[in-house]
């Protein structure tokens, strides 16, 4: 009995690891097979070439620096969007008048893709960090705003009434009742926003890089552009793609962890 209960979690742990790695391993294997047999172009990427390119790119320092630069922009842009989105969302969600005033503007800007404001961003901010940052902030703002408004409008009205009967002032009800009650929605919005922010930064850096002819944006997106437009290095592009994917996965896991810590009552 005791041995069984001790062994059980171990076995399930290994099972889940096996299940999670099975499909990727098969894909990599098939890819390698294709590169070694069917691929005719010598520049075709293969897992082994990608791996050596990865080591190269890390050791000459470019990849890590570029990734961190992109990540830094995402974090700052997300932070700006978080503050703006949550503050405006709380006001719009809790005050009908404010919602009526802002709703038409928000709803008409929301469908405009972040990349569509790229020309304007470049005109206003040039090709450096401010342009990329403005696009990331723009992209992350809407999921945060919409989910905050939704969360606030769905707050159990009884909780607000209860606070009122305990002599809690209005502003404090916003901070102590409405904000925590809407937190699950805000966290959902944050996760979505972080996802689109990370997508938008790569696209923005690619786009800005194209405009400036490899000039000044920096970041992993521009790195990809350089490999595409100048050295035509497919292996390096695949390395960048994988890094982007892995970073996105790590961000998502980090958010789940934060969610778990911020909302212990949900578990």
């Amino acid at each position, binding site marked *: 009995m005791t041995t069984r209960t001790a062994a059980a979690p171990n076995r399930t742990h290994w099972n889940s690891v096996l299940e999670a790695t099975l499909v990727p391993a098969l894909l990599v294997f098939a890819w390698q097979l294709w590169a070694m047999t069917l691929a005719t172009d010598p520049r075709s990427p293969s897992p082994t070439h990608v791996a050596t390119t990865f080591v190269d790119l890390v050791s000459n320092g470019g990849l890590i620096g570029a990734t961190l630069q992109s990540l830094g922009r995402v974090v700052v842009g997300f932070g700006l969007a978080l503050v703006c989105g949550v503050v405006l969302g709380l006001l719009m969600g809790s005050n009908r008048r404010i919602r009526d005033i802002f709703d038409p503007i928000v709803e008409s800007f929301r469908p405009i893709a972040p990349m569509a404001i790229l020309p304007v961003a470049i005109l206003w901010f040039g090709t450096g960090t401010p342009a990329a940052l403005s696009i990331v902030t723009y992209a992350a703002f809407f999921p945060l705003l919409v989910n905050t408004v939704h969360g606030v409008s769905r707050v*159990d009205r009884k*909780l607000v009434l*209860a606070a009122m*009967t*305990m*002599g809690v002032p209005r502003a404090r009800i916003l901070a102590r*009742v409405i904000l925590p009650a809407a*937190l699950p929605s805000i966290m959902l919005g944050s996760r979505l926003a972080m996802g689109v922010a990370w997508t938008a930064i790569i696209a923005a850096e690619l786009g800005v890089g194209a405009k400036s002819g490899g000039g000044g944006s920096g970041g992993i997106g521009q790195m990809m552009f350089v490999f595409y437009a100048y050295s035509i290095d497919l292996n390096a592009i695949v390395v960048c793609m994988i890094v982007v994917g892995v970073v996105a996965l790590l961000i998502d896991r980090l958010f789940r962890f934060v969610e778990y810590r911020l909302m212990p*009552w949900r578990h």
Partner: protein
Amino acid sequence: MNQETAMSKLRLRNVAKHFIAPRTGQLTTAVTDVNLDIETGEFVCIVGPSGCGKSTVLNLIAGLDTPTSGTIEANGAPIVAPGADRGVMFQDYALMPWMSVHDNIGFGLNYGTPGEGLTREQREKRIRHFVDLVRLNGSEKKYPHQLSGGMRQRVALARLLANGPDILLMDEPLGALDSQTRLILQVELLRIWGETAPREQRKTAIFITHDIEEAVFLGDRVVVMSTHPGRVKAIIPVDLPRPRSEHIRADPRFGQLSDEIWDLIRDEAYRAIDGTEAPAGPKATAVEKVE
């Protein structure tokens, strides 16, 4: 103003509340002609079929809603807004799901007017006192979703009392509980309200319920309301001695009072179920009570 009415803790005069449906614009009268005087330290129960405006009356006294006409006064001053002097216990408790038992009980003390002028230690001491009073020691760190219905109800009661309100307003607080827990908490509620204390030291309490026997067991008076429109049909004084124990249910007077109240509501109660008329029969005989 004469001496007698000036002493009332709560005074409702010709109170009416109409609602306008947002889309159709149709006017409905929730309550009308409500006249009620409640004295200090009195425990008043309000019973009536659903839709009689019991909760509306409570919300008006709480200041969460304003009457369309008529006046409501507490201690001689008109009620214009919610205030911590009139504590409310909601039907589904309205506990903050993100807060522990301890923080829920201290909510008003930490963020509202009841905590003004108190140091952190004083507030903590007070929270401790009410945790003890409702017997929740050892569960302070739990969240509401980890508690049973009866425990949540105690948290709500402790939160209500920790704010030190002058008047307790309770909207079917025991409605969601199973009948055994309910009987136990009724006794406990009377103990906490101050049944054994002299009258002037007791809180003034208004308790809404749809359970007639609960109303008779708890109340000094039972206000019976009727529907269409919601109004006060009768006010029945409960002349049972205090302190009351579970055994008072065996008292013949308890049965008489319950029957008397049931007779006042039975027609409407039957109509509320499926539109049928109440079976005709001699009054106050064993009408089947669906409890």
